[in-house]
């Protein structure tokens, strides 16, 4: 089991076998009332397990060859959304027009509820040193015993971790 954590993400599970445990009640999720409606699978061919995965060739008949030559440079760095929005220059437009930044929901006017970083229950307490929230007193020694890394990992869930750039 210890070697599992160190292996690559997708590779390890594919190699292990499923156990045939006799007394376990492995209950496959039945499509009851509460389950999600199943997706309708689009029309597909059969499984292709032995064949290599299909590729999409880049040379297609319906593509304009001239277009491709124009954009041949691989070094093209595509603008991220932030840059795009900045270039849109929304501030110089009339205020009543809807723009991408306009319609973003504002910060809440009501105080947010605080939840325990460990268990997820309501957290009335906060540790002043590590800024972690906890729901009951017996969690305090545990929180204090955590290393820096762990504390930051817990805080990162709600983006309260310290990010040094």
């Amino acid at each position, binding site marked *: 089991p210890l070697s599992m954590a160190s292996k690559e993400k997708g590779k390890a599970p594919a190699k292990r076998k499923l156990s045939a*445990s006799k007394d376990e009640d492995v209950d496959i999720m039945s499509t009851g009332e509460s389950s999600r409606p199943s997706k309708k699978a689009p*029309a597909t061919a059969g499984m292709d397990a032995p064949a290599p995965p299909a590729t999409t060739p880049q040379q297609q008949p319906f593509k304009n060859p001239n277009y491709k030559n124009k954009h041949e440079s691989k070094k093209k760095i595509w603008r991220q959304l932030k840059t795009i929005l900045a270039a849109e220059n929304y501030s110089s*437009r009339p205020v009543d027009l809807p723009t991408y930044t306009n319609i973003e*929901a504002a910060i809440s006017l009501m105080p947010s509820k605080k939840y325990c970083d460990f268990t997820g229950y309501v957290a009335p307490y906060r540790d002043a040193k590590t800024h972690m929230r906890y729901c*009951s007193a*017996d969690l305090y020694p545990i929180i204090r015993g955590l290393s820096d890394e762990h504390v930051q990992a817990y805080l990162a869930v709600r983006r309260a971790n310290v990010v040094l750039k």
Partner: protein
Amino acid sequence: IIHFINMQLGRVFPLPEPVHVPDAQSSDYTKFKSKHTSIVIDNGSYSCRAGWSGEASPYMSFRGQVGKQRSKLPGSNETTLNVYVGNDMRDADLVKFQAKGAFDSNVVYHFDVQESVLDHVFSRLGVDDSRVSHPILMSEAVCNPNYSRQKMNELLFECYSVPSVCYGVDGVFGLYNNASSSSPSSSSTSSSSPSSLPKHALIINSGHACTHLLPIYNHQFHAINSKRLNVGGFASSELLKKLASLRQPMHRAYLTPTRTNMLKEEHCYMAENYMDELKAYQLGQREDEVHVIQLPFTEVVVNPKTEEEKQKKAQMRKEQGQRLKEFSEKKRREKLEECESRLARYQELQQDFSAVKDARKQGGDDDDEDILDDEDLLARVEAEGLADEDELIAATIDLEDQVKKMKKRMGLLTAEEEKADEDDDDEVHTYPLLDIPDDQLNDTQRREKRKQRFLKNMRDGRVAQKKRKLVDAEKKQAAVKAEEDKRLANPAQYLEELRSKRKSLLDKRDQRVKMKAQLQATSSGSRRTVDRQRLRMLTQLEGEAQSKRKKVDVEDNFGARDEDWQVYLAVTGDSAQDDEDDDEAQIIQLEELLTKHDPEFAAEQQQQQQMNKDNSNSNVINLTNVGTDGASSSSTYVPTARDYQIFLGVERIRVPEIVYQPPMVGVEQMGLTEMIMHTLARYSKEVQDEMSQNVYCTGGNVGFPGFQKRLENELMAIRPFQSVLRVQVARDDPMLDAWRGMSKWSSECNETFKKVSVTRQEYDEMGGHYIKKYFASNEPLPATPSTN
């Protein structure tokens, strides 16, 4: 620790395995080619759905990811670039890890990837012309930036030579799909305006990247009052992955993005009332709701050994032992032979030496020097690895001793030799020649003298060593006796001393472990407490030194005394490894004594071990094992199925909740309820009433069980007393909702579709940002003004 999950857990589920089915190549393109059927593409940040207009379902639906890989063609030296799109990538493929998506949040920004995606769409649909001669209906982000739309138009018009393009907001089409089929009185079959859409409605479109609130006002999408919340399916999956990884870090490897998505879809649900549900989990009332995911696990079966098998094993072990013994005997004999042969060689050499010397002597060379001229002898001496005659003599004596010892060990000494050996030790050895100075001896005698000198030195050394051993043994005896005396004199006090010593050593050890952990902490250099302490120490020492210098005008001779160098120890604070080992040995010793003499101690230890075993019981999730691999340190631990399970308890309701409480993941925006409240407030009372009777939910992220009920509860809380509410979630798969609406509209309202599409000519004239307004479009904005 109270937050463990005990034995009575909920149902056990298998780990979901991602299924990989590549998109098939269409074979009936000709049917659509002649009619120039529109191609409908719902381009989403999670997945892309594409197909022919008028169909009930999209022909293909795949993850919007593209992976590239260079591969060498067999037989040639060329490398080709293979492009895998969406379903062509298996989850375990290497390409999947480097796969790129075209979206940043919900806006397309990477048009190379987009190009690959469109290639994939058109080629699988079977397009074989020199251009894609079908009108395109495509979805875009709410208030899509002009730049993005321009680039997309560029791609479609100039690369694929499409005749016309129409963009629409996917959420509105989702409503179109639901509304037009649900209201039987509408005449939506051939109308030019979608009057089947309710007059006023509110759409909640919760997608992968974000959640939108889209008000419909007067049958049209009212963009100015729409709202976007930057939390969606992606944030939910991320939250699930982080929570599961933190709680059980040893199973982190299993939580790939695809698997996490599947787990989220299968196991998470929306709580009808979050606070109540949370409380129920906390009080332990939802123990049967805890879902257990069983990871692949091979059972290790330990059969109880029968008597036969035990005997067989014992037999095997004996045989092995014997074999080992024989082997080592053989080795020893070989070594002995080798030493003896070497000894014979040395002795021969010595004889040759004396022979040469005598020969030289007789030849008139009355040389007192021992310098060897004879190259032959020199070469032989060097071949043995010795420098000159003296070393040869010393080595010979050494070797003789060694051989004797080995023989004694192996019991090969003859009776004579044994006797001689014993006598050797008792005899008084005299070295008569040592007293006579050199010049009075002749050569042979001188050589004898040298031999005797070596012998004497060796003997003396051995005798001294024996003496030292005796003294040490005596000292040890004395110490043990002293301990005993102390114990007998005052037993209680003695035990107290032992305990306190042990405790202090244990504390020191804990301190050391903590320091080590701090040293290894990876926070930035100057902030580590250890480093700060060091800095403080150094400045302190410097300050002291300075003040000392000021007081007394003495030369700085720091370092003259030995104790000065101890400051290094103080400053670095690195305890030497020897200290640790000494302490450990002492702790063990103390514990032995305590167990022997103190009856209570033994009982305590037993209890302690029992508690440790209980605490690390595999039935209990120990939160202090965060960060460590959970397996027990004992070597006899047999892993059970429980060690390979992921528990989803309160995470099941936490994960979907972020849409209502975005601060749970650090997004400082208002939740869905508040957004609805503010949006409704912008309309008149009548419109508000109508809207709250026509609330529609679409998008993949609304698929959680209980979403509808929860939204109803939330609306009820913010609407006036006794107002009518109606919340509808997409009847069929919410993810295909938008595509179906688009397909329906483009085929049923074909006239309108044609009218509001932007043709190639219009694109050339008006620019890439140009769109025409219709019920599902964004608000057309003028071209981006250039910055001065």
